[in-house]
């Protein structure tokens, strides 16, 4: 287990590949023998500062801390906290870091966790900032990919849906591009393509291949992983644009029949209608197992950042 004590996790690039491996390896062990870790965070407190709604991220962080014997506090509605009185992120963090040993922050403003990290004396974890980054979802995704494929390198991955505002996509694609042999298929309407800077970064700094397409069927026969995303109503300034694009991609049984037998279908959840319910019964659909991975990977991450381990 590598020493990450006291570090922040704002972006996946804050972690080296060996550090990511260390988190994944410990998460795998926690998944195998959860009981062995049930007391390692006794006396530790996690504060969840959620300025934006969340189910999986918030509850999986809380579950992770509780499963390690620690305690939790926090808020899930900015209107029910001092934020409603106009308190800044900086002031909230400077107060909360005295109340807790580790903070996870979700915020609609992009860069808010980076700002918070500059004011905190305890580790800050980015639980998702606007359409920017979601590094713990990436760790969750990597644990899932390891479990299903036994490796992360050399995979062909299709990202489908909202690639412009999809923070889970940004974090995962940036991270997978650091592993050799990655091939990406970017499936989105023209209005929701991957931000040009990110695409340029992929092409400039890594050896991955990138293909863009408008239809799912163009990529489906060739990929090992299909990463579906929701068209996010909350990221649009204009509702008419959302309504026009929300049904752009729907994965159903007929489309899935064109894919490889070894394909896995991932989704950070929640889904709206982009995956038909009939797909849930296909063994290639792994998104609920993926959500479960989120607990173990967050246990491992917090254990690393707090510097606690199994005795």
């Amino acid at each position, binding site marked *: 287990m590598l020493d990450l004590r006291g570090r922040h996790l704002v972006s996946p690039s804050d972690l080296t590949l060996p550090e990511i491996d260390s988190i994944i390896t410990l998460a795998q062990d926690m998944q195998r023998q959860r009981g062995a870790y049930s007391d390692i965070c006794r006396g530790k407190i996690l504060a969840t500062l959620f300025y934006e709604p969340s189910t999986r991220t918030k509850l999986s962080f809380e579950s992770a801390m509780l499963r390690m014997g620690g305690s939790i506090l926090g808020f899930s509605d900015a209107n029910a906290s001092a934020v409603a009185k106009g308190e800044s*992120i*900086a002031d909230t963090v400077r107060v909360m870091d005295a109340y807790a040993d580790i903070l996870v922050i979700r915020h609609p*403003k*992009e*860069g808010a966790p*980076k700002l918070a990290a500059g004011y905190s004396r305890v580790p800050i974890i980015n639980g998702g900032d*606007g359409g*920017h980054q979601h590094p713990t979802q990436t760790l969750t995704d990597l644990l899932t990919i390891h479990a299903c494929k036994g490796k992360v390198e050399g995979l062909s991955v299709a990202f489908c849906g909202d690639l412009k505002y999809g923070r889970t996509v940004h974090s995962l694609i940036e991270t997978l591009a650091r592993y050799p042999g990655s091939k990406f298929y970017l499936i989105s309407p023209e209005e929701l393509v991957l931000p040009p*800077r990110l695409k340029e970064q992929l092409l400039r700094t890594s050896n991955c291949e990138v293909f863009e397409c408008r239809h799912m069927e163009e990529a489906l026969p060739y990929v090992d992983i299909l990463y579906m995303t929701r068209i996010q109503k909350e990221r649009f300034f204009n509702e008419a644009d959302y309504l026009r694009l929300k049904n752009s991609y729907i994965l159903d049984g007929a489309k899935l029949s064109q894919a490889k037998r070894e394909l896995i279908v991932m989704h950070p959840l929640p889904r709206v209608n982009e995956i038909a319910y009939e797909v849930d019964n296909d063994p290639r659909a792994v998104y609920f197992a993926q959500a479960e991975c989120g607990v173990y990977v967050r246990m491992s991450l917090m254990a690393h950042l707090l510097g606690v381990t199994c005795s």
Partner: protein
Amino acid sequence: MIKVAGIKRGTVIDHVTAGKGLWIFNKLNLASLGHPVVLLMNVPSERLGRKDIIKIEDYTQVDTAMLGLIDATITVNIIENEQVVAKTQVTLPQVVSGLFACGNPRCVSNSDQYVMPIFELYEAESRAYVCEYCEEITKVAWK
């Protein structure tokens, strides 16, 4: 031609593209500096044809990062005892703090007033800077 005496100590902002002198004067807030300042406009120049010059007496702390963003032709001369002791050709700064706002309306630096926007040069040719907070690109239009 108008003759303006040299300064004993201070800063000469030379080779300003003709017409930008007044804008720089205002951008650097030189009127409220409290030091004698001279703005010369449309001065003949071998290099530029015409140029503007700003002379500031007893003051050497000009913001060269801002000058680099505004006009890459500028030379900044620091004067001591009527001699040029340092000559700097301004360039686009590698890192910029607080001189312009992030172009991303969802960036935290645009919503929390105490946050100093910080950028790193991404591509000089297009004058593109990447935001330290949201990592979006902002192209600086000052030129």
